[in-house]
């Protein structure tokens, strides 16, 4: 026989109470406190002592009743042999190792490996242990499937070898995504186990929790109840640590100098306050420079601006810090690509009557592009230029037939041409201009005439959906009524040509776009000089010409800041070479993976373009996340109960079930009631016998 609550047997001690009450010597009755006994004398008292038991049977009945009640409260039950056994219990443990860039810090990875070893060591043979790593994504090191296929005796060695071979990456951490994916993986492993053999799933999260850890994935994640997370935090080995973070890529300031902005952060516990900066070349050799040391007290940060970078420098290194893993920032000075804009005019002079006078004053260049203007006449334009060298040709109304033919060829090869008819059509030039226009547009049905304007003409019916006019589409900018045209030409084109981008208020063409092969020609019915119209002097002119120029060249933009773990879209005819001179193969989504910090080279033929890749600033943050934050996001934390505890709980549940089925306590209560009834009858009988007869 077993008992569900054996401690209730202590209640059987209540049997002693009736005996004790009986044996306690009673004090004489009638005791009174008096103020002072100084006037009183004692009278001899007569005390009677009564300390023997005389109702043995009654006492026995009462004791037995109490014993039966105590027995009932102990919840007795009978256990059969088949309910005694219980199978071996085990846990599904997923050791989740952070392999982000912050784990590259001195001594951190060694600690992580030790913690993994400890986690492997504290697992029982019944536990199923797998190792996964995460930085920006979760990847298996030794998956549950792999460990299940391995004989149990070889599993610890397999796990230990895997963790010994594992190295941290330079990627950024996405801890929320890593934990959520790990939880789903573990949940699947737990569901695959027999319920009676599994305690549950446990993620052993081994991370330094450093940097701005991203937990956004967990904010709306429905955490599975059968999975728990145990955090093992890696402490920093070095108290003093400083980081160097690029604030922005190389940029041009107003003086057209290339500059570099860096953020130097010192840890709150740092004992070092003075730091040196050194430029390094591509072979990591220190270059001579005159940078003065920087003072940054513990817990502070300082922005550093550097100009006059040495030509051979590819990186800058922080000296004076005890942890070298986060002290280097790479940068690549861009090489400006030259491109030409040809101004095909009546003369090569530059004055207000020429179209080019106003175009030359527009800053078309950028940090990666140097725009050079070249004034030519129709006589100089004998052969079409290469569109890769000449981005745009702007021609005026003085164009000759041979030059027109070359322009057409240029446009056919992908060149972009702006042809502005800026000279009034007279009898002397009408046939020449019409002929040139027919050559350029390859159409003989074109007619030209001078428009009759009483005062001025304005642009209307502008196609704001076209990329050239799209920047003006907003209601704040689409007012072209102040751009007045004093004189323009009437251009009659065949019906097959598309509708114009803009027309004058009399319905004639103002701007017409003609596509020829890969190139485009924009035909303007008027010039933009003040004698023709107010366009050159209006605020619309520069955005309009910039739009035309950018339209002419679609260059893949490389982001200003690239970090380890980023990808770069594959560009045609280009090779990407990693910092250790290995060509990188594109991944499945046709992008190059930039896995480590350093200078990558984009090679197009013999030309090479350097790209700097650094550690993500989030990984360089010196702050640490509190592991309790996981619990705030709904993650169930804390270790699983031990197998012994679970087995005890299961045993208790089985006992409770048995006791409920058998209900022996009811019989005990019945026996107690019988004892009490007999005691009542016996005591009443004895009282009747002892009462004096009346």
């Amino acid at each position: 026989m077993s008992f569900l609550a054996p401690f209730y047997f202590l209640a059987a001690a209540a049997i002693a109470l009736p005996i004790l009450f009986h044996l306690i010597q009673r004090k004489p009755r009638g005791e009174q406190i008096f103020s002072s006994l100084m006037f009183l004398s004692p009278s001899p008292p007569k005390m009677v002592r009564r300390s023997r038991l005389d109702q043995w049977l009654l006492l026995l009945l009462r004791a037995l009743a109490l014993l039966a009640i105590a027995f009932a409260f102990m919840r007795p039950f009978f256990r059969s042999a088949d309910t005694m056994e219980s199978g071996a219990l085990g846990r599904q443990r997923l050791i989740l190792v952070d392999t982000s860039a912050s784990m590259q810090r001195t001594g951190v990875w060694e600690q992580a490996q030790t913690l993994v070893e400890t986690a492997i060591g504290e697992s029982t043979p019944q536990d199923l242990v797998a190792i996964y790593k995460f930085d920006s994504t979760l990847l298996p090191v030794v998956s549950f499937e792999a460990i299940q296929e391995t004989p149990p005796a070889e599993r610890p060695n397999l796990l230990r070898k895997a963790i010994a071979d594992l190295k941290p990456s330079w990627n950024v951490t996405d801890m929320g995504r890593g934990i959520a994916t790990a939880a789903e993986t573990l949940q699947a492993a737990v569901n695959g186990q027999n319920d009676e053999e599994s305690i549950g799933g446990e993620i052993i999260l081994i991370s330094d929790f450093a940097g701005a850890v991203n937990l956004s994935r967990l904010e709306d994640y429905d955490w599975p109840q059968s999975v728990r997370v145990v955090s093992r935090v890696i402490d920093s080995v070095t108290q003093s640590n400083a980081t160097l973070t690029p604030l922005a890529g190389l940029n041009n300031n107003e003086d057209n100098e290339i500059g570099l902005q860096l953020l130097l952060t010192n840890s709150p516990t740092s004992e070092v306050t003075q730091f040196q900066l050194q430029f390094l070349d591509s072979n990591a050799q220190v270059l001579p420079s005159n940078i003065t040391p920087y003072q940054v007290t513990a817990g502070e940060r300082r922005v550093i601006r550097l100009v006059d970078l040495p030509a051979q420098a590819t990186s800058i290194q922080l000296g004076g810090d005890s942890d070298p893993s986060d002290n280097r920032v790479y940068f690549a000075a861009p090489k400006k690509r030259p491109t030409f804009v040809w101004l095909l005019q009546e003369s090569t002079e530059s004055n207000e009557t020429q179209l080019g006078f106003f175009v030359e004053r527009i800053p078309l260049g950028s940090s990666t592009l140097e725009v050079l203007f070249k004034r030519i006449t129709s006589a100089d334009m004998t052969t079409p230029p290469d569109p890769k060298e000449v981005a745009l040709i702007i021609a005026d109304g003085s164009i000759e037939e041979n030059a027109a033919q070359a322009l057409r060829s240029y446009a056919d090869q992908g060149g972009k041409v702006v042809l502005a008819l800026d000279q009034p059509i007279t009898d002397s030039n009408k046939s020449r201009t019409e002929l040139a226009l027919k050559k350029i547009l390859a159409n003989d049905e074109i007619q030209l005439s001078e428009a009759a304007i009483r005062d001025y003409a304005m642009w209307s019916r502008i196609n704001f959906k076209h990329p050239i006019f799209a920047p003006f589409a907003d209601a704040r900018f689409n007012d072209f009524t102040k751009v007045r045209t004093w004189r323009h030409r009437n251009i009659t084109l065949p019906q097959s040509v598309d509708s114009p981008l803009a027309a004058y208020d009399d319905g004639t063409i103002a701007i017409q776009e003609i596509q020829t092969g890969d190139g485009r020609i924009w035909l303007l019915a008027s010039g933009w000089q003040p004698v023709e119209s107010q366009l050159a002097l209006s605020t619309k002119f520069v955005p309009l010409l910039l739009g035309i120029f950018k339209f002419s060249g679609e260059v893949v933009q490389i982001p200003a800041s690239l970090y380890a773990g980023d990808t770069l879209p594959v560009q045609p005819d280009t090779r990407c070479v990693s910092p250790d001179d290995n060509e990188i193969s594109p991944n499945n989504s046709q992008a190059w993976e930039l896995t480590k910090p350093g200078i990558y080279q984009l090679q197009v033929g013999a030309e090479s373009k350097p790209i700097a890749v650094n550690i993500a600033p989030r990984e360089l943050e010196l702050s640490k996340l509190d592991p309790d934050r996981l619990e705030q996001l709904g993650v169930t934390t804390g270790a699983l109960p031990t197998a012994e505890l679970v087995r005890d709980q299961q045993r208790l549940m089985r006992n409770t079930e048995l006791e409920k089925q058998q209900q022996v306590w009811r019989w005990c209560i019945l026996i107690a009631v019988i004892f009490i009834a007999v005691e009542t009858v016996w005591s009443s009988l004895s009282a009747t016998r002892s009462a004096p007869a009346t």
Partner: protein
Amino acid sequence: MTAQIDPLALMRIKNLQLRAKAVVDGFYNGLHRSPLHGFSVEFSEYRPYTEGDDPRTIDWRLFARTDRYYIKKFEDETNRRCYLAVDQSKSMQYGSLGYTKCDYARTLAATLAYYFHLQRDAVGCLTFESDLIEFVTARHRPGQFQRLLASLDNEPQGTATNLVRPLELLAEILHHRGLLLLISDFLVPLENIEKRIAFLRARRHEIMVFRILDPSEIELVGTDAITMVDSETGQRLYVDPTKERERYREKFASHENQLQELLGRNGIDYVRMLTNEPLQRALFEILNVQSRRTSSARGAAAVSGRSRR
């Protein structure tokens, strides 16, 4: 004739101040006048100048009108110091009427304190058991009455009575001449008390003794034999009242006679207050004693005046 308040009804009032006011307001008919003359603002009478009078007291305006020397006399503001010494020993915790002797004594002390306070007397208070518990210096100033009540309101610790040590301390503390009202049950041996009381009297203190007794202490009641427990010593005594009643009465009367003789020898007035008696009686007793002393003082002054002539 003022209304007498039943002590049982009075003791149901929890607040000691209200109890004191209830007693005194029913009794009080106005400020008493000091029989002693001195400088004050209230004019009393003119008296012909005699040798030995202070010349500063001569009214020179009256002299200008009458060509006689007259002394202008004023009623003196009282500057009498009254001390209330209240016994809070264990024997005072006894009571057979629903309240203890100590409650009654505290109410009596508060009543007397309020009465003297209204008369603008400086009132002080001290509570004692076997030793002094608390002492409040006699003063007449705002808040003094509340201080006295706070002192009286302190719950007694309850140890044995020993009047010797408190009387010695009183003699040490009370430097200025004043009125000392000793409130106790005096259920102590009297052998060592006389010397201390005589010493107090020698310091020219006026002393009045209020002996507080429960009615059941005067006469043993009941017929059944009972175990009596001494409230102070814890001593147990099995007593048969029917046998002991007469002997107790004799011993008690003898002790009281001894006490009265002792006090009488030292010129101390003795008032026995049973806890079922109205508290106004104490005020009447005080008035009686005061008037008796005033008349005796005047008689003595008259005798001395006649002898001087």
